[in-house]
């Protein structure tokens, strides 16, 4: 709890990370019991899966919906729990080398620089060590609404196929099911309006720390297929 960043925005429950950091000591066993129960049963409280979608303007005087970037705000308590699960899942993935070395996104000790270097080095080495006819052709592909397009059933099947511990799979299945969200719009006078509740039956949750590793596992097959 002490590692939580106090400045992070809170979810619909208005419980901030700062509140969690200053929680009374006698509350700790209660919270521990709650988390242990969630872990053992593989069930997540429904309220932890409700997000507030806040449109953030990309420029001044934004009027067109395309001028806004939606930010998904989850309850801080859910975020801290997701963080613990992310650590567990990431450790397992690293220990068993589940992700191919061609994946560079959201991995420790790798960055866009590593990805670019791998690409540039390969092209450069080929062109300058072969002959004047040497060349390289590259196709750059961007996936559309990637996180929102993930099929949950397929993701769970892939987690099982990669022999991710059953408890993590069960917990992930619960995390992905029955997700809801409201859009919160802040008006010019400072007041806010909420949309009706929307249900999401696809995708991994935006704004959750576990989503990048889940997405990496989801698209790992592309790399495996391509290397055949």
């Amino acid at each position, binding site marked *: 709890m002490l590692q939580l960043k106090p400045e992070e925005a809170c979810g619909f429950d208005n419980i901030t990370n700062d509140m969690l950091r200053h929680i009374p000591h006698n509350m700790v066993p209660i919270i521990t019991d709650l988390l242990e129960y969630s872990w053992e049963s593989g069930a997540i409280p429904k309220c932890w899966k409700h997000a507030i979608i806040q449109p953030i303007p990309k420029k001044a005087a934004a009027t067109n919906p395309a001028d806004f970037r939606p930010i998904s705000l989850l309850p801080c308590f859910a975020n801290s729990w997701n963080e613990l699960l992310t650590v567990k899942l990431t450790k397992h993935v690293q220990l068993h080398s589940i992700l*191919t070395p*061609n*994946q*560079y*996104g*959201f991995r420790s000790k790798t960055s*866009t620089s590593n*990805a670019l270097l*791998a*690409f540039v080095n*390969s*092209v450069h080495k*080929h*062109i*300058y060590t*072969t*002959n*004047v*006819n*040497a*060349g*390289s*052709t*590259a*196709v*750059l*592909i*961007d*996936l*559309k*609404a*990637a*996180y929102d*397009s*993930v*099929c949950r059933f*397929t993701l769970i099947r892939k987690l099982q196929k990669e022999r991710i511990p059953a408890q993590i799979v069960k917990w992930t299945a619960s995390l992905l099911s029955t997700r809801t969200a409201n859009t919160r719009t802040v008006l010019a006078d400072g007041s806010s309006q909420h949309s009706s509740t929307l249900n999401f039956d696809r995708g991994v949750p935006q704004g959750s720390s576990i989503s*990048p590793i889940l*997405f*990496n596992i*989801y*698209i790992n*097959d*592309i*790399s495996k*297929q*391509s*290397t*055949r």
Partner: protein
Amino acid sequence: MNTDNPNEPTIEHILYADDIIIWVNHTNPALAQQRLQSALDTIAMQLIHDELRANVLKMSIHWFTFNNQTYGINSNTQ
């Protein structure tokens, strides 16, 4: 994607979150095109299976040559 046959164009790829770069190093453009097309077909099949879609407005193809010239073709300009 590396092939054992030194005459075969070498196909490489990297994934970075929702971005995929696939490239082929070649001295024989026709063979390279064939290998690249084959690799792209494989990726397309996997994307369909996983219910993911490529953003065609952001796709691009680039040629890198010995004389340091780079030719980029963006699908926006096609």
